[in-house]
């Protein structure tokens, strides 16, 4: 799923949880209209520009695909849970390499020095440790997505 589709899903989720009736988002690249009103069309999405990243040598009119909003971030955690957060910006990877088994799954028991994921910066991969022993409650970050310093990656219940 690409970034724009992920953003649309995040917007729809937010909208569903809200008490709004209608949502309309327009940017230079995208128009999104959602309504809880039974008379209105349910959801329309129009993208105005071609998807591909334009090479710099191309004509001045081609426009880079925009990510209209930064990804919705999880910031609240269940009582007693411990969050493993990103020590710096980078790409979040669940597995040592594509196709391999993920380092951890929800429900798995871990020790403080169990590797739970990788953060990659320009092909430099840093393993991230659980930091506490316990059980994995949730994997919050999305595989292959960019995370920022301080973003929650994995939630652990340290009492189990």
């Amino acid at each position, binding site marked *: 799923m690409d970034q724009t589709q992920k953003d649309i899903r995040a917007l729809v989720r937010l909208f569903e949880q809200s008490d709004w009736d209608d949502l309309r988002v327009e940017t230079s690249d995208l128009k999104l209209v959602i309504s809880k009103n039974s008379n209105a069309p349910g959801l329309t999405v129009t993208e105005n520009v071609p998807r591909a990243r334009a090479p710099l040598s191309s004509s001045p009119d081609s426009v880079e695909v925009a990510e209209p909003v*930064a990804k919705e971030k999880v910031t609240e955690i269940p009582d007693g849970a411990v969050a493993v957060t990103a020590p710096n*910006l980078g790409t979040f990877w669940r597995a040592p390499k594509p196709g391999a088994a993920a380092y951890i799954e929800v429900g798995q028991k871990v020790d403080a020095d169990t590797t739970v994921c990788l953060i990659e*910066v*320009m092909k430099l991969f840093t393993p991230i440790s659980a930091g506490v022993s316990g059980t994995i409650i949730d994997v919050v970050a999305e595989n292959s997505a*960019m995370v920022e*310093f301080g973003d929650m990656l994995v939630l652990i219940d340290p009492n189990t």
Partner: protein
Amino acid sequence: MNFSRVFVANRGEIAVRVLRACRALGLETVIGVSDADRHSSGARLADRVVVLGPAPSKDSYLNPNLIVAAAMGSGCNALHPGYGFLSERAELADLCSESDIAFVGPTADTIRQVGDKISARELAQAANVPLVPGTGEVTTVEAAKSAANDLEYPVVLKATAGGGGRGMAVARSDEDIAKNFDAASLEAEEAFGDGTLYVERFVENARHVEIQILGDGNGAILHFGDRDCSAQRRYQKVVEEAPATAVPNDIREDMRAAAVRLAESINYRNAGTVEFLYDQNRNAFYFIEVNARIQVEHPVTEEITGVDLVAQQLKIAAGEPLSLTQDMINLSGHAIECRINAEMPGRDFAPSPGQITAWLPPVGDGIRIDSHCEQGYTVPPYYDSMIGKLIVHGTTRAQAISRMRGALADFRIDGIHTNTHLQAFLVGHQDFKNNKIDTRWLERTLLPAYTKVMGV
């Protein structure tokens, strides 16, 4: 433009400056911040903020891989490095180039060429740009005396293997050479493992004069006149002005021509500054270095030319041909910039971070403030102390000085200590008003006078 989204890889006032220029051109913006700058005004101004790492610069602003990863991850196709930080690190320019991100600045090769002192001097020589006259190695006192007489006293004996003042001795006569030669050689031997000395003309009464240039990367170079940055403390500029009216016009013309020649010889791309030392005693000028970036003091040039240099940077990076010709660039009036630092001049300039409880800048004709600060902002302790720049423009230098004095008096900053009072004393000092200063004046004359007046 053939890019649409710019990553701003810097912080503070220059981040705001670049963001504003991008917005004026209809470009989307992303800023990379450290954790300490999450809530800065730059973060609010940008279309998107990405948090690179924790507060220390080495974990955020000084990490080229983090920065380029952030630029790519946020869909940017151009990157402006500001000044300082990684702006003159070829590695950042290379990474951008490899990742299809337009670096708003020179090529990585140019950065390397001019960043190396020896290579820069060779380029200058090849372009017929004068260097500080000096010799190759001198192995005897007699050879040193002979060289010194050719170069004209005063001279300085220097270590070929090092710098930083070690193995250096100023000599004003043959007797001084005889007295200091062996000691200087010994000191050099101890400090750098090599006691070889050379002799260079000592510029005692110097002005720091620099030429702003823009290049299209294909050999076309424009200059935007000169700046005089002689008011310095510990080699940091404190006040800058444009044009450099204390320097004779023919010297200024020669400097401008030399700067353009040097830039042409390397097909310089984007903005840069060629720095010279003007020897006031000998009425000669010498090349110091090239700064391959936009500089802190660029606003004084903008004020006297009416050109937005950052906008020009973006256009050049987008591959556009230069939109100006040399005869379209006119210098009008006089501009002065005072750097505003969060520091305590009375306590050896110790930094003064903390929360700004009142921020009331001066307003009026010919007054410009370049700053990211506002009431309620907390100046973090992790970065350098410059919190803004106060720039004035007047039709004459005298009017600019008077405007600056009024502006400094009106500038209210509470909650932290700043250098505004010292700046006011500086621009009101007789020597500054008469434009009779040199690069050591601030430390030699101004600061002792200030200390006396403040009764410290």
